[in-house]
């Protein structure tokens, strides 16, 4: 089912949690809502589910206005952040709940229900725990029960709020893969919330990044990662360095070096004069301090090996922290030591207006 969110605003007291947000979600998509904590992701998800209602704007499901429709009438599966399993019911009864409460005329027979519940439990790999109570399950197992329960009503849309939030790293990874596969098997429109960019980029077909109740950027994971569209995006994706520069023509001045247009992306509408440059850690190249390519020099203060990459932290001339990420083998010939002064060559700079966002 397709979802259209049209100019939706939701205000709590005088705090707008979602501000005039418009978003189209196509049928069968696996969409990630990504954003820092407090950016309005849960609020948006709850409004799609019909658990909360917009103060203004509309929500359309399959083109039909569903703004005022209650949660029970939308047939949308919702998986809560803390699972919200019914603690006094067994796993089986939890999954069966949505079937049990159907009006008699629509309700499948007891045998059909049982078969469908077992099939779902089979699919989430928990058939052997059907008789347990939620308190007797691990976090990952509870999460999968919650999913099976949401799927039992054959929802038209599946919404998951931070589905992997409370789980440890290994379980998270498993569940991620598993959610991707599930979406292939059951291609229901799925929206999941996360504040973990890696999770979003890994699982989703499309990513919506939210910031302070608005959409900051929408795109395919690769696109979002390759071309962040705003200073917020650089900060949020992390491992980006901020520098003060001056825009001169179609290049910039960094300290007393002029950097020409070939290495500079200037966002539309940035005037000449002081501006902010963002340089991502992997866009930094280490060179000898006297090398003509060195755009600046800095002192190494910390290094950390991670897989094939080396994360390096420097302190620049004005005491600002600078981050670089370089392939490990490039480093072996450099033989870096702590407190060593190195030259940094910036392969690419992304320029935004000063003080923006």
């Amino acid at each position, binding site marked *: 089912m397709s979802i259209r969110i049209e100019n939706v605003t939701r205000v709590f007291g005088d705090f707008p949690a979602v501000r005039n947000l418009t978003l189209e979600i196509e049928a069968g998509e696996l969409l990630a809502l990504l954003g820092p904590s407090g950016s309005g992701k849960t609020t948006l998800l709850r409004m799609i*589910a*019909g*658990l909360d209602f917009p103060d203004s704007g509309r929500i359309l499901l399959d083109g039909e206005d569903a703004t005022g429709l*209650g*949660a*029970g009438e*939308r*047939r*949308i*599966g*919702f998986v*809560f952040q*803390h699972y*919200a*399993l*019914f*603690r*006094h019911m067994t796993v089986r009864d939890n999954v069966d*709940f*949505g079937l*049990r*409460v*159907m009006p008699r005329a629509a309700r499948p027979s007891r045998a059909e229900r049982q078969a469908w519940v077992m099939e779902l439990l089979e699919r989430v790999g928990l058939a052997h725990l059907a008789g347990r109570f939620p308190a007797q399950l691990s976090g990952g197992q509870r999460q999968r029960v919650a999913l099976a*329960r*949401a799927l*039992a*009503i054959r929802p038209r849309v599946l919404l998951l709020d931070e589905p992997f939030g409370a789980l440890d790293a290994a379980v998270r990874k498993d569940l991620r893969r598993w959610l991707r596969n599930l979406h292939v098997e059951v291609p229901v429109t799925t929206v999941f919330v996360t504040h973990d960019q890696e999770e979003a980029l890994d699982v989703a077909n499309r990513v919506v990044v939210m910031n302070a109740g608005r959409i900051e950027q929408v795109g395919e994971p690769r696109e979002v990662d390759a071309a962040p569209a705003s200073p917020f995006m650089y900060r949020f994706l992390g491992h980006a360095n901020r520098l003060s520069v001056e825009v001169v023509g179609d290049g910039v001045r960094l300290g007393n070096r002029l950097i020409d247009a070939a290495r500079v992306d200037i966002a539309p509408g940035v005037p000449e004069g002081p501006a902010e440059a963002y340089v991502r850690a992997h866009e930094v190249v280490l060179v000898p301090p006297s090398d003509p390519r060195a755009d600046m020099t800095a002192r190494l203060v910390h290094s950390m090996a991670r897989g094939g990459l080396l994360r390096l932290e420097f302190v620049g001339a004005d005491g600002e922290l600078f981050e670089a990420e370089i392939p490990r083998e490039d480093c072996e010939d450099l033989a870096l030591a702590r407190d060593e002064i190195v030259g940094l060559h910036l392969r690419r700079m992304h320029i935004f207006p000063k003080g923006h966002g």
Partner: protein
Amino acid sequence: MHAPTEPRHYLLIGLAMAVSAIFLVVPLVSIFAVAFSRGWEVYLGNIIEPATLHAIWLTVLAALVCVPINTVFGIAVAWAVSRYDFRGRRLLISVIEVPFSVSPIVAGVTYLFLYGTQGLFGPALQAAGIQIMFTVWAIFLVSLFVTAPFVARELIPLMQAQGSEDEEAAISLGASGWQTFRLVTLPNIRWALLYGAVLTNARVMGEFGAVSVVSGNIRGQTNTLPLQVELLFNDFNTVGAFAAASTLAFIALVTLIVKYALELREGT
């Protein structure tokens, strides 16, 4: 917590036990001791004495009326204050506690002032031919007032702690409001609810002050058990008074046991 080790620990524990025994257990035992002091037959005779029997019946009736009403009231209030944010919510939470903070006598007098013949609504009620004071209705009314907080007080903190996610999950799975309440909310609060109802029951049956003001103490008509006990006592019928009191003590014991069992349950 750890086991006592030093002599002063044992001394403290011994003291606590001795004081409990003297002030709590001895009186309780003595009620039954005096009640049965002239043997079974006299005891039974005292119980089935028409005025006492009527008092027992009236007391049970008051409980049958008040416990369900205040249970429903308690659920409604707890639901409202734990699920909705509205103007006056905090005030409501405080107001529920009023019956706990005023003396029951004051409650009785207030009702007398409102509904008595000389009272605020008295003339209007009299004109309509309705008599409330000094009838069982007055007993029900003040009992309702005095026990209004018990259930709500048990439920509010629990329902606030549990939050509404379970209910939202049920609703989004297509359950109606009533199904959600019956299948999700009620099971989540059942022990606290039962506990609140048990406390309500004990208090309705045991209430003396408020009831004594409004009931008019009409023997065989508006006397509840606690009033009957006092009446028998004033008649110098000590054994009869203790026999009647023993039924109240028995209810108290049962309440204690149920409370204890429920607390064990909740602890698991």
